């Protein structure tokens, strides 16, 4: 085939234009706006000052929300990992005819509305939800245990959303491991557990870390679960941005918080990319 050097660029130009015009430039706008001033009248005045950032770190109120976000993200990563590794390992090892069906089931939540999946926890955890109903009926408790509108409920919703990402990432990594390696270790005298710990587990680490990064990043930007399942104290950084921009129309301050969130994620993704390579994540995403 005769190669025309301009041809790939022609094919790329619509996407590149769209992303540049509608994403790169607008994000630059956010950065620029974060230095602007907000007049008491509500007008935005072009300026170059760090007042919005200073306001964020002026007292504990905003940094606590940032730290809460990071803590919830770490907790979610940890629970997703614990809940996700064993099913992924099951898929790797099983020879069941049901395997394709079970894999589709893992991906099924991707197709189910996010908001429905989130609010569905109200039916389980609410005062008249499934758990309280069963406990009341069995006589173990006399009044419903409040389980909604706290951090635990938010994390439940987050795991529901993110667990498939974790399972798939780990599975893709496990699937690339030659099973005869563990067999070899066993024939050399390792027990099943030793073979797993010394051979399979280390080889699956790229998938584990990719899953962890993805879950962390997606949790940090999450808006809906704290809104629906959380109480007033469970606000995360995205809720704060929404409130400042849509609620009080404070664009410069909202922009500054957005930049802080972006910076946090950029630092984490950049560090990850230095050591692990970002492509692992995209590899498993395309399987989903």
């Amino acid at each position: 085939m005769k190669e025309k050097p301009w041809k790939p660029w022609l094919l790329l130009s619509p996407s590149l234009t769209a992303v540049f015009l509608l994403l790169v430039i607008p994000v630059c706008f956010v950065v620029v706006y974060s230095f602007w001033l907000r007049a008491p009248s509500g007008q935005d005045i072009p300026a170059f000052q760090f007042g919005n950032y200073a306001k964020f770190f002026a007292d504990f109120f905003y940094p606590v929300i940032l730290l809460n976000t990071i803590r919830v993200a770490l907790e979610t990563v940890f629970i997703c990992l614990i809940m996700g590794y064993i099913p992924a390992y099951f898929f790797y090892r099983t020879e069941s005819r049901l395997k394709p069906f079970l894999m589709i089931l893992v991906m099924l939540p991707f197709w189910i509305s996010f908001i429905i999946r989130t609010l569905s926890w109200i039916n389980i955890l609410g005062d008249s939800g499934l758990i309280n109903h069963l406990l009341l009926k069995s006589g173990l408790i006399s009044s419903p245990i409040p389980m909604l509108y706290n951090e635990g409920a938010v994390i439940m919703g987050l795991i529901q959303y993110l667990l498939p990402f974790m399972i798939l990432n780990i599975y893709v990594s496990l699937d690339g491991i030659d099973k005869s390696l563990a067999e070899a270790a066993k024939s050399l005298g390792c027990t099943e557990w030793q073979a797993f710990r010394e051979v399979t587990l280390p080889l699956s680490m790229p998938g584990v870390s990719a899953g962890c990064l993805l879950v962390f990043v997606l949790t940090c930007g999450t808006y809906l679960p704290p809104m629906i399942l959380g109480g007033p104290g469970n606000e995360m950084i995205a809720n704060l941005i929404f409130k400042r921009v849509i609620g009080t129309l404070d664009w410069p301050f909202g922009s500054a918080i957005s930049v802080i969130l972006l910076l946090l994620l950029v630092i984490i993704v950049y560090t990850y990319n230095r050591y692990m390579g970002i492509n692992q994540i995209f590899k498993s995403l395309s399987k989903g």
Partner: protein
Amino acid sequence: MKKLISGWTLIKLYTILVYAWMFAPIVAVVILAFNPQQFGTFPLEGFSFKWFVKLSQNSTIMEAFQNSLVLGSLTAIFATAIGVPAALAFIRYEFRGKDFLNTMLIAPIMIPEVVLGVALLLFIRWLQQPKSFALLLIGHVVLTLPYVLLIVQARLVGIKREYEEAALSLGASPFQTFREITFPLLAPAIFAGMLFAFTISFDDVTATLFWATAQNQTVPVKIFSMLRTSISPEINALGAVMIVLTVSIPLAAGYVARRFARGNTP
């Protein structure tokens, strides 16, 4: 050896528990949708379609459904129209800066939707344009483009270049080659990309909350505003409809695509 089997049994059991945990809330929504009780809660007291009937009479939800369908379809068309050529460029050609550009086009997946929402809205405000359906559509195309790229690229890698080269060497023009060889082979990938874009657009809440006006609210945004008051059985019914719809569409599409693919292989 006996110990090994029990270990495997534990793994199986654990996996079953994780599945149960994952699907219990979803099943609960569907079950409660049929509960005739006034509050959408347990215990079940009979079986009725009354909330579905009530839902179908709710004109604002029906309107939101229409908005969602139109928005999702248009998003799917535009996102694949610009995404498929880009995927072709990345898989079929070598050029400078390829890896960088590929990462740049896919990286928006990692940008929080809230930030995308603020960014595009700020830009539109600077251009002194009002919020409109066009803004919502443009936003959704940007939101779904990385996913379309990922899906189509993954499928494209599997299509051998030799077929195209054979057609060319047998005298077909490049356009004929595309029409007769590449496009039919590519069709399932395009279809998968469209389906994915549609689902993401149909499902999106966060960014849509930023961009939507009162006139073009989508179903999830409508659900969100209904939730502010309380969870009603109507929401469970709507949830059940959405679950059945969004699950059956890709399953059916997968079936059709498989039939289609089988018809194409000689």
